[in-house]
């Protein structure tokens, strides 16, 4: 049959097509569309546990008066602003180095750096917790090397707790981003580099003016993935602080706050749903900004 103008409409009316996708539509509706709509509906209610009353925009008003929410928001944005750039630059540099075929044991290094992100989230958080405890291996090493006079309160002082969370997520996710860059680097035509080398372009300039621009789509992709991951940050802070975001709420993230509101405190599902929509809006906003910043200018 020739694909004519009526093709689109014909396909629309073709029952077989609909039957094929019906199972997925059904599942998506039940497990994706319904929860999204239901949580939006919930965000207009407030009350204790199952005793909910319609509250209109009451939860939004509550948001603006809630110092804990504002602190969780600030923490989340801090993690995002500090950690994502560090991780992206680190992953890019590692990928550039490990793309060099003349390096010995290259397979070992690539695997070693990628390995952390295969580790279980809980296992590695617990490991970090014990390594960075007051009497932990890290403090002992720092003391032995005379880098510090007193043990650092990695889990007891607000500033160091934030540093620890950033260290932990950088350790785990850098290798993951690196793999994307490595894959993209393999696709860059070697003759470009050869031509640059013949023209006498130094190595750092080849990296800045050739590698980075060529990787732009992949960098955009990893940045957005990392943004979403960081804004939803939960496992690490939960496991490092026994679910408390301690000390002094310094590591409390929005996701952890939602969890506490739902499962630790007097359950307030409506308010928690409202905060989860804050995350949705943030992710959408940041992703849009990144697309905008990385757009092709003609």
């Amino acid at each position: 049959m020739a694909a004519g103008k009526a093709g689109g409409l014909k396909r629309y009316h073709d029952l077989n097509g609909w039957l094929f996708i019906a199972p997925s539509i059904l599942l998506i509706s039940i497990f994706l569309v319904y929860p999204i709509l239901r949580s939006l509906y919930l965000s207009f209610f407030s009350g204790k546990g199952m005793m909910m009353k319609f509250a209109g925009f009451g939860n939004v008003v509550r948001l603006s008066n809630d110092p804990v929410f504002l602190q969780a928001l600030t923490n989340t944005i801090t993690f995002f602003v500090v950690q994502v750039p560090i991780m992206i630059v680190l992953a890019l540099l590692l990928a550039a180095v490990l793309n060099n075929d003349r390096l010995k044991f290259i397979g070992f290094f690539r695997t070693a750096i990628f390995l952390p992100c295969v580790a279980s989230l809980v296992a590695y958080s617990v490991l970090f917790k014990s390594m960075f405890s007051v009497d932990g291996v890290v403090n002992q090493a720092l003391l032995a090397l005379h880098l510090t006079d007193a043990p650092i309160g990695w889990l007891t002082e607000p500033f160091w707790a934030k540093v620890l969370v950033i260290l932990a997520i950088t350790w785990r996710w850098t290798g993951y981003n690196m793999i994307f860059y490595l894959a993209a680097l393999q696709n860059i035509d070697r003759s470009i580099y050869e031509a640059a080398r013949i023209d006498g372009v130094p190595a750092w300039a080849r990296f800045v003016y050739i590698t980075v621009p060529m990787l732009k789509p992949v960098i955009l992709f990893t940045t957005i993935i990392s943004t979403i991951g960081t804004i939803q940050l939960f496992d690490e802070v939960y496991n490092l602080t026994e679910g408390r975001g301690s000390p002094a709420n310094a590591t409390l993230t929005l996701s952890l706050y939602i969890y506490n509101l739902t499962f630790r405190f007097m359950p307030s599902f409506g308010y928690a749903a409202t905060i989860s929509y804050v995350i949705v809006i943030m992710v959408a906003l940041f992703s849009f900004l990144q697309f905008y910043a990385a757009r092709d200018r003609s």
Partner: protein
Amino acid sequence: MDNRTILSRFAAGALAGASLLASTAAFAGEITIWCWDPNFNVAIMKEAGARYTAKHPETTFNVVDFAKADVEQKLQTALSSGTTDALPDIVLIEDYGAQKYLQSFPGAFAALSDKIDYSGFAPYKVQLMTLDGAVYGVPFDSGVTGLYYRKDYLEQAGFKPEDMQDLTWDRFIEIGKAVEEKTGKKMLGLDVNDAGFVRILMQSAGSWYFEKDGNLSIEGNAALKAALETEQKILQANLHKPAAGWTEWVSTFTSGDVATVTTGVWITGTVKAQADQAGKWGVAPIPKLNVEGTSNASNLGGSSWYVIDSSAEKDEAIDFLNEIYAKDVDFYQKILTERGAVGSLLAARTGPAYGEADAFFGGEKVWQNFSDWLAKVPSVNYGIFTNEVDTAVTAHLPDLASGADVDEVLKAIQSQAEGQIQ
């Protein structure tokens, strides 16, 4: 005979069979129980189950051991999703959270007012499981507090057991300085992300985060202020070994690094688990705050058993709790000597174990002491938002360490708590 008749006869037959089965095999189920702490609640529940099974061989028990936070979160998730299949038959709930569950999940727990004789239990425990005139749950252990101290360390620093009686917190701090000077040991382990210490001190003065009517009481709460000031003095004098989390905190004293522990009586089992420290420990009443109406007795934690209303083994579970926890005085003697569990069944306290000397504590009659202190614990209203306000207090503990003005800290706690309580 048409199909419909066959079907109805078949259904009637099946029904009769089922009811026959139910009547002959009454109470022949497996009771699933969720609780935490393998050395304490889990072990005690297994003992209780074994006692019941000895008399009712058809009933078996499945005691599931979780971390406390996991029990609470699993319970809250299952209750809010409405999938009752996921729930156990009996669950342990810490007293601070009792009203929260009762009020936010109405109908989830079985009301036991006419099934259990509550007059036998300590009234404050019954009070906190009562909602709208109905009583839910079976009272279990008390969290009456004591000051556990290492006699050997204090002796090295020049103090006798008599010096540890009826202290004030200021005197405690002085002693702590001497202990560190002489022995190099810290006076206490402090989980700097946990407000339990503040709660002990506050309740010893008959105060809580809430007034009796449930209104928030932070600014202007003299007992809370005195408690925070005491914690600040300890933090600033650096008398403590800092810990992050429960496990680290427990290891501060099991490792022998600190000289004292101030906490609920349920820690006894953990202290006694270190057999090599036998004879080295003593127990005294906790020090006093500098506030009017304060006492040397307080409470930390303590929990009770609740039966899930939708449970298929509901009646069996209630019968079990009634027979063991509400009547078996002998059972309470055993869990006291073996696990250090001070139950809230009043009759149990006349049993022989309470008068016995404990060799681990150098032959002191510690149980007699704890039960005397229990009678002096000031009763307070835990309300339904203790977790929320506790988080607000915890959030400001580092400010105390860095020397913030306590009035400012109270103001900040008040503001954070108000944002949470809605």
